[in-house]
């Protein structure tokens, strides 16, 4: 009897498992033009960037039938993961949401689908609503569109409006102003909890996103004649611009800022610096647009309506490239100066963007484009850029002009005007700095520059040694790849049409 009972139970369990396996693998197949297609989209672990993709995937599936799987990898591994997938012809990813700088590697090798015709034909994408900078630079490589922008990236300076107003201070216009303000508030209690807080909180961790913070400071000293002048290399001979008095001044600024923050600042990434700022522990910070939206997130912010944003501080002295010396701004050297200050807003990273694997079947590529278009369309992106947890910052004209979603998200009208105004001022600047977009930019910035900066902040290298190391390593990499081809790629990246 017990044996029969055992057999019956085992049969029942097996049947149950079989039924479960049949139903677990997929949801109810819905009708739709991409029914049966499963999209594998790779991006970084986040939670930013991956969150909106994961959140909106079910809605996209309901509308089109395509199932979206979002695969995440750590930020520092994303470039290598995608490239290895392409180069080994594994092709396990259908689409990728990544750093558009990397087009310099992916496009010449023929890995990315050309989207030029698709974006023109897709009325729901509203391509012309995307700000010209992100359309013409971030999404484009040598005249062709390869990515769909999902995010707009500019670094700005953030400040505690309440503190500066209380003490009669103006937002920092130069890097010296930034240091002076940070020094004033370092060690003071800024959030009423009785503990000393910090003048400035900036991400400075190695192998993370810190080198962009340095470049935000360096840009003001290195570029003054407009975007096409570039801030990384001499456009005549591809010699790095990292060994001159301007770079030395930027290193000095960076070092001083590193000493006016939390004790662990050298080990802090953007998550740490943002968290410290929105919990009221910092008077200043440098970041992309994330702090603006995180500041109105009631679940973590104690500084709602106390945060101001301003275009990146500039400098009254810039590098004369013929001599390498730092000289005072004049109308010839700094034609774009505002009140004698050369601002060079840095479009660090370029903004997370979606691209499509060229090697995939046509229906998969169509579905991938439809998903990226859906994510970028004003109805979705207009909400996502107001939410701090998404990591997406404004990049469409409508996102700057329509304050409604921002107020709905919790920003006061004044705070929204401040925040969006700072981004707009950066976007409209004729002297904005384009991020490096040449083959193996990850090596120039993520390895050579990042390591040298970490060593400089740790005291392993002096400023002169740091500049020499960066210059030597950049030159070595340029010679390995080919100086002539790298120069062509660099000059092509600077020819922005507006």
């Amino acid at each position, binding site marked *: 009897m017990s044996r029969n009972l055992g057999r019956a139970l085992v049969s029942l369990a097996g049947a149950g498992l079989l039924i479960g396996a049949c139903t677990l693998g997929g949801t109810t197949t819905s009708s739709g033009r991409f029914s049966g297609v499963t999209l594998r989209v790779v991006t970084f672990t986040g939670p930013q960037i991956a969150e909106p993709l994961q959140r909106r995937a079910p809605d996209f599936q309901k509308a089109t039938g395509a199932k979206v799987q979002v695969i995440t990898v750590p930020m520092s591994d994303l470039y290598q993961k995608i490239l290895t997938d392409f180069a080994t012809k594994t092709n396990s990813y259908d689409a990728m949401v990544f750093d558009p700088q990397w087009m310099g590697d992916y496009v010449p090798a023929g890995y990315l689908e050309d989207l030029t015709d698709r974006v023109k034909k897709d009325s729901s994408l509203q391509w012309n609503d995307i700000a010209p900078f992100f359309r013409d630079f971030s999404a484009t490589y040598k005249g062709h569109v390869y990515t769909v922008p999902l995010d707009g990236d500019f670094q700005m300076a953030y400040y505690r409006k309440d503190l500066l107003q209380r003490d009669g201070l103006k937002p920092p216009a130069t890097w010296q102003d930034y240091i002076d303000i940070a020094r004033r508030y370092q060690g003071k209690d800024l959030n009423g909890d009785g503990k000393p807080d910090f003048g400035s909180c900036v991400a400075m961790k190695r*192998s993370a996103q810190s080198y962009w913070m340095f470049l935000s400071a360096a840009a003001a000293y290195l570029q003054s004649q407009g975007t096409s002048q570039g801030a990384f290399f001499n456009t005549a001979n591809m010699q790095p611009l990292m060994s001159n008095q301007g770079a030395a001044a930027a290193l000095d600024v960076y070092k001083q800022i590193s000493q006016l923050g939390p004790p662990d600042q050298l080990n802090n990434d953007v998550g740490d610096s943002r968290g410290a700022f929105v919990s009221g522990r910092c008077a200043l910070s440098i970041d992309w647009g994330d702090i603006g939206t995180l500041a109105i997130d009631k679940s973590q912010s104690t500084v709602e309506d106390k945060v101001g944003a301003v275009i990146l501080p500039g400098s009254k002295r810039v590098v004369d490239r013929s001599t390498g010396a730092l000289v005072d701004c004049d109308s010839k050297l700094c034609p774009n100066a505002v009140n004698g200050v050369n601002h060079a807003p840095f479009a660090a990273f370029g903004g997370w963007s979606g691209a499509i694997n060229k090697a995939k079947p046509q229906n998969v590529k169509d579905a991938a484009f439809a998903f990226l278009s859906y994510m970028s369309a004003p109805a979705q992106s207009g909400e996502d850029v107001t939410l701090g947890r998404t990591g997406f910052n404004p990049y469409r004209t409508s996102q700057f002009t329509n304050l409604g979603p921002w107020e709905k998200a919790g920003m006061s009208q004044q705070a929204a005007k401040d925040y969006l105004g700072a981004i707009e001022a950066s976007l409209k600047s004729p002297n904005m700095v384009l991020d490096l977009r040449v083959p193996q930019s990850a090596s120039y910035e993520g*390895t050579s520059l990042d390591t040298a900066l970490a060593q400089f902040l740790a005291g392993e290298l002096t400023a002169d040694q740091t500049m020499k190391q960066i210059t030597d390593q950049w030159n070595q990499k340029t010679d390995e790849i080919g100086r002539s081809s790298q120069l062509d790629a660099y000059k092509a990246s600077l020819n922005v049409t507006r």
Partner: protein
Amino acid sequence: MSGEASTRSVAVAAPWRRPLSARLDRFAGPVFIMPAVLVILAFSIFPLLASLYVSLSRLSLSAGGAQLNFVGLDNYRKLLVGIDRTHFLGLTEPLTPVSVAVLAAVYAGFAYLLVRYARGPGRTAVGLVGRVVVVVVAAAGAWLVADTILTTGRPGTLVVTIIYVGVDVGVQYLLALGLALLVVQRLPGRRFFRVVFLLPMMITPVGVAYLFRMLTDTSKGPLYPLWAHFGLADVSWVSSPWGARLAVMIGDVWQWTPFIFIVLLAALESLPVELYEAAVVDGASRWQTFWEVTFPQILPATSTVVLIRLIEAFKIVDLPNILTNGGPGTATESLTLHAYTIWRSLDIGGSAAIAYMLLFVVTFVGLTYMNLFRRRVTAMA
């Protein structure tokens, strides 16, 4: 007649039947182990040779894909004498009196051991040559460590890794031996502590790294009240080179001491009690009992577990990666992390070269240990 016929038929049948079965028998051994050999070739030897080729190449991207361009020993040249020398080997500066004194003591020790062998009864020419090679390499290593640590220089990833291995394995062994000696006694709760002492080894290394990252954060986290009570809330472990290295080493010791502990505990529990009874009868003190009876008996287990830990310790990567990303600067960067960092930006040739340098170092240390120490220990046992 029939007997002759049957004998003749048997004599005719045997020659062609016996060679076939004998041949099959002769090849049965290799045939049975062939699958295992093929697996080892596929997953160990071929990748080893392929990565050797990669270490002699440089990756470049071009239309249609990626290609490996042969560059000879250029990747190794960059590490040893080129642009990456200070990152890999370290920054050497003029020797200080302290470093000179330390080196003198170390070299004197090497010389003593070499002379003792040369004058000893079991010396051979091959043994002498081998020992001279070991001494020369070890002396160069000692000079590199002293000239980067005990001067105003800066250790490279090779020296940082050697420090991790030397300190971590030494501390792990002493701690594990102490814990094993405690647990082997008939104390209340020893079964509970035996399980508790094993727990760190069960946690994934990345989990341990994040745990220590939280613990070393003096501004927030579970230990913040403790740091604040002692006025250490503004102290940063990970912003000073040796503080950061110490944090990495503490994490590594915490995680891997259980491995040595469990091996030594098994060795201690297998010792015959008669030896201890004899020692008691002879009036030996506790220290004498440990040094003359217990320790020699567990030397074979000690030598094995130390060898295993030495080899594993050279590969440390999780803790420095998660805790500090190799910082501040390059202070906590191990060889594996160095290889991983440059691999991320497509320098797979350079990364493979570092991996091979690590292989050479580990092989040298392993072979030296086996030949000079482990054989003698096993023979004593």
